[in-house]
C-alpha cells in the first residue's frame, strides 16, 4: 500500500471534492454536524490537503470523520468548488478498508450499520424493510408505526401496497433472480469483501473489549460516551 494520501487521491470523490481549500469556513458555517458535534469540516479538509501522513492516520482513526451526515450542503457553497462531504466519504471508505474504523467509537458503528443495511439489501432488495425496522429499536417511529407493523398485511393492503406480493408494486417481493444478481454485484465489486473486512476487524475489536458479537452490536448501536457533543466534558 502506498501512502495514505496517495490512497485517498485514487478515490474519485477526492479528485472531485478537494482541489485547493482556502480555509474560508463556508462549509462549517452551514454544516448540521458542525453545530451539534465537536466537528469542523474545514479542519478535516485542511488536514487532508496538508498531506501530513501522521495527521491523516490520526484522522482515519478518529471520531471526527464519522460526524458528517452526508447532506452535502457544503457542496453548494464552497467557493473553490470543493466537496467536503465527498472527501469525508473517501476518508470513511479508507478507514473501513484499513480497519482503522474500530479505533473510534463512532467508527465502530460501521458494524451494526453494515449488518443492518447490507443485510436488508441482500435479503430483501431494499435498504430499509419493515421486517427489520423494529419499533423496539425505533421508538421514535411512534405508536402509529407499532400499530402499522402489528397489522402490516392489512394496513399495507388498505393503502394499495403489494407487500410481499408477486409482480410490481409497493414493497413487493423482489424476485430471487434479482437478489442473486445483487449478490453477484457485491461479489465482483468489492461489496462482499467490504462486509467481510468490517466483520473481521469488528470481531477482533469485540474480543479485545470482551464482548460477543451480539453484545458488541448492542454496544455500538446504542451506546454513546461523552466527548462528542458540545457540552460534554
Amino acid at each position, binding site marked *: 500500500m502506498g501512502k495514505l494520501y496517495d490512497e485517498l487521491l485514487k478515490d474519485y470523490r477526492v479528485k472531485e471534492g478537494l482541489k485547493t481549500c482556502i480555509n474560508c469556513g463556508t462549509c462549517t458555517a452551514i454544516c448540521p454536524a458542525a453545530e451539534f458535534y465537536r466537528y469542523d469540516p474545514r479542519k478535516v479538509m485542511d488536514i487532508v490537503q496538508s498531506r501530513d501522513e501522521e495527521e491523516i492516520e490520526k484522522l482515519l482513526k478518529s471520531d471526527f470523520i464519522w460526524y458528517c*451526515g*452526508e447532506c452535502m450542503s457544503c457542496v453548494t457553497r464552497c467557493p473553490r468548488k470543493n466537496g467536503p462531504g465527498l472527501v469525508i466519504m473517501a476518508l470513511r471508505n479508507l478507514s473501513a478498508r484499513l480497519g482503522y474504523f474500530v479505533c473510534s467509537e463512532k467508527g465502530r458503528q460501521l458494524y*451494526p450499520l453494515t449488518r443492518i443495511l*447490507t443485510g436488508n439489501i441482500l435479503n430483501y432488495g431494499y435498504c430499509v424493510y419493515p421486517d427489520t425496522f423494529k419499533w423496539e429499536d425505533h421508538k421514535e*417511529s411512534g*405508536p402509529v408505526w407499532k400499530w402499522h407493523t402489528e397489522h402490516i398485511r392489512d394496513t399495507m393492503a388498505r393503502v394499495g401496497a403489494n407487500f410481499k406480493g408477486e409482480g410490481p408494486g409497493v414493497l413487493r417481493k423482489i424476485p430471487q433472480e434479482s437478489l442473486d444478481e445483487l449478490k*453477484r*454485484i457485491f461479489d*465482483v465489486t468489492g461489496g462482499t469483501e467490504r462486509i467481510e473486512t468490517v466483520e473481521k476487524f469488528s470481531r477482533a475489536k469485540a474480543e479485545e473489549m470482551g464482548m460477543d458479537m451480539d453484545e458488541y452490536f448492542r454496544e455500538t448501536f446504542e451506546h454513546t460516551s461523552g466527548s462528542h457533543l458540545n457540552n460534554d466534558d
Partner: protein
Amino acid sequence: MIYQGKQKIWADYQKEIPDNHWFYVRSCIRQNFFPGSEKMFLEICRNVLKKDFFETEYHTTCGGIAYHCDTIPQETVMTIVARQFALMTEAGYENYVASCITSFGNYAEIIETWREFPEVETRIRELLWKACRREFKIPKNLAHASDLIYKYRNEIAARAKYRLVNRYTGEPLKVVEHIGCHYAKMFPSKGVGGAEYPYVLCGMIESWGGNVIDYPERRHCCGYGFRQYHVKANRGYSLSNTYKKFESMEPYHPDFILTNCPGCPYFMDRWQYVIAETEGKTYGGNGYGIPVLTYEELASLVLGYDPWDIGMQLHQVAVEPLLDKIGIAYDPKEKYKGLNEKDLMRPELPGVLRCC
C-alpha cells in the same frame, strides 16, 4: 422578501422534463413509511393524466442509503445503479424517474462522475457484465418524481376538487416547503429552481392555491444524516436538526409542510412526536403537530381522494385539523380500518402530542 427576485432565479433553472414515457423506480423509505404515496403517484400519472409510466418488478434498491452509511464501496453502488439503467434500457425507455431523493442524487452523482472520468464508466460496464450479463444506456433524462408532479401541476389544478385555502377565513393556507438535500444541493442545475430557492414544490403550492412561507432555516437539512439516524446512539443529531427547523418556522404558524424527499416527512413527522414527548412542546396549535405531507399525498388530497385510501393514517401527526381547514370530507371511523371494514384496533395515543 422580493418575490420578483426569486422569479428571476427560477427562470434561470428550468430543467427539461419530457411530458411522457417514463421508467419509474421506487424509494425504499417511501415504500416503508408512505406506501400510499407511490401508489398514488402512479394512479395520478397513469389513470388521471393518462401518461405512460413503466415499472418492473425486477428493480431493486439503488443502494443509496447503504452507500451514504459508508457500508458499500463506490463501485458496488455504481454497479447496482448500472443494473437499474440496464432494466430501463431493456424495457425500451430513456427517461428515468426516481421516487427517492437520495436515489436521484445518487444517479446524478454517478452520471456526472462517469462523464468526468469515462474510465470509471468503462470499468462499471465490465463489472455489470461480469455480474449480470447486462448492458445499459445512460438515461437521456433523469427526473425526480416531484419534477413530474410539478410538470403536471396545472393539469392537476384543473381537475382539483379542493384548493389550499382556509375555508373558515378564505385565506390561502400557509405552507412550508422542504426540499431533500440531495435534490439540488450537489447539482443546482438538476433541480427545478436551483439549490437556493427551489421552485419544484413552490410551483405546486402556488398552482393549488396556497402561500409559500420562507423562514430562516428553510434550506437546513431535516437531520436524517444516514448513519446519524440508523444508529440509535446518534439520533440526537437527527432530532436536533429538525428541532432547529421547527423553532425557526414556529413564528410563521404554517398550516402544513410539503416535502419532496421520502425521508424528510418521516423525520419531521416523528421528531415532532419525540419533541412533544420529551420537551413538552408542540407546534401546530391546540396541542397538535404540523402535518408533514408528501407531494403525492397533497396532489391526491386536492384531487379529492379519500385521505385514508392514500395512507394519511400512517402519519404520527394528526392530519385532521388540516383536512378540516381545507374542507376535505373524511370519515373518522374509517381511519384505522383495514379493507372491507376489517377492525384493526387503533394506535395508542401519545402522552403529549395530540392525535385523532
